């Protein structure tokens, strides 16, 4: 993937889309093959190094938001910075402002709608100025209206923050908005034939 590129990855349920993202993020270790991220070979790194790489280079947006319930919106975003370069309150607040949540900084996730929660998660994913944002079915739990809004924000803010975006979805409406859509089924075959690089 080129810098700042926005790519969608499609595939039916159970095909391994999430596993693929986990492999890129270094959450899972690949049995074989090579994954490169920001010039580093993820597949060659030991777990603590993969953790560090993930903290500093990657943003992750989940289908289920995965906000920590005991932490406010602002704290959830700060938490996204904790394991990377360090907390930057000003940036965290600015990101939440950008997400339209400037008046929700001290709200807890349970006090927010699903769409708002996902926007907090997007802010958290961008908190560390990642090179790449992985979005795993980010609109899967949202209604049509919030879904469109979330997708628009994800794409815009990734571009604003110079982050590439790899978005996984099986929703045709979502996929239709990307100029580059890869099918995991095909990609999987290609990967098995020759080394891929990311």
């Amino acid at each position, binding site marked *: 993937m080129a810098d700042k590129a926005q790519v969608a990855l499609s595939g039916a349920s159970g095909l391994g889309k999430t596993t693929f993202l*986990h492999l890129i993020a270094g*959450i899972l270790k690949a049995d074989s093959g090579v994954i490169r991220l920001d010039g580093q070979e993820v597949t060659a790194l030991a777990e603590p190094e993969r953790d560090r790489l993930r*903290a500093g280079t990657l943003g*992750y947006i*989940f289908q289920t938001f995965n906000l920590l319930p005991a932490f406010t919106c602002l*704290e959830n975003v700060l*938490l996204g910075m904790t*394991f990377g370069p360090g907390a930057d309150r000003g940036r965290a607040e600015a990101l939440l402002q950008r997400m339209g949540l400037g008046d929700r900084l001290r709200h807890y996730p349970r006090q927010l709608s699903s769409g708002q929660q996902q926007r907090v998660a997007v802010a958290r994913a961008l908190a560390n100025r990642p090179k790449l944002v992985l979005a795993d079915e980010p609109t899967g739990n949202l209604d049509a209206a919030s879904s469109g809004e979330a997708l628009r924000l994800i794409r815009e803010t990734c571009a604003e923050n110079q982050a590439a975006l790899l978005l996984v979805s099986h929703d045709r409406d979502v996929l239709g908005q990307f100029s580059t859509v890869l099918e995991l089924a095909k990609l999987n075959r290609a990967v098995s034939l020759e080394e891929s690089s990311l």
Partner: protein
Amino acid sequence: MSLWRMALKSLRQHALSTAITSLSIALAAGLLMAVTAVREQAQAAFTHVNSGFDAVLGARSSKLQLVLNAIFHLEASPANITWADYQEIQKHPGVALAVPIAMGDNYRGYRVVGTIPEMLAGHEYAPGRHYAVRPPGRLFDPTLREAVVGSFAARKLGLTYGSRFHPYHGLNFAEEHQHEEEYVVVGVLEPSNTPADKVIWIPLEGVQQMGGHATNAATEVSAVLVRLNGPTFGPALDQLYNKKGTRLTWAWPIGATIVDLFNRITWFDRVLALVAGLVAIVAAASVTASIYNSMNERRRQIAILRALGARRRTVASWIVLEAVAIAALGCAAGFAVYGAILLSTAAVLQAQTGVVLDPWALHPVMGWAPLSLIGLSALAGLVPAVKAYRTDVAENLAPSH
């Protein structure tokens, strides 16, 4: 965001179990500190209290009984000794001061002790400290029915300058044993933080001549308190009274006799320390249990933190820090438990013995007990921390797990 802040957040999230677990730590910390501090303070206080005397001479009995009776005004008087015995010790060249005391009466449970004015005047009950009578009071006239009341007894009995009272026969209060003689309070002592505070002092002859006392009481005393001219005379008198003689007991030195008492009750200390130790272990186990029980719901949080880039070691430290924070909260509350135990113990001890403890005195146990408990809790946190360390990220990121 620091790990500390994360740990505190999560404690607040589990407020009830945090509170209950901290309470058990507080109990353990309070008990550990109180048991140690009370023992050491009491031992220090008791062994230093000698009312300014080096020895007690009394009828043949145990040294401890003599000291408890004559110095602390506890326990029964063994038997009386004769006036001649008193005169003999008084004339001994090694004796600087010999004060006879006569016991056997009380006023509403507080001992009425007959003595000579020298007991309260011109005599240091501790280095550089003299008994003082509150104005406008004065010492009793040895020929009159007058009394000087210790500060604690005066407060408890409501006796003030000019009060009148009838002593009761015996060391224990019984309504029907009232003596006919009436005494007038001519002085109340300033607090001395010694057993003298809970005694009503009257002239020696008053006790000796009190109506209803045995006729030979008139020529006897209960014990003699002795201040020596130098420590070398102690063993000489020990030889004279304890080794050669058979009638009397020479309790010297007073401090060593009390140390002996404390040595005899070390088993009790050990039981208390053991109980406090067990409470500490149970408290630490409750830290393990409370965090471990929350591990199921935490698994997903841990997976999220790991996905954000937290290392295994970091999430494990988070759990250990949480255990440490629970212990720290508990120890802070433990000081309140400690204060409560010390205040009530000090009150009881003062009422019973006149010896005063300082509940606010600093003590090394106030440092090592909380630190040990925090260390123990950190160890207790290791069990769930290992579970956190092993949490599989990919498996636990989705809510279905």
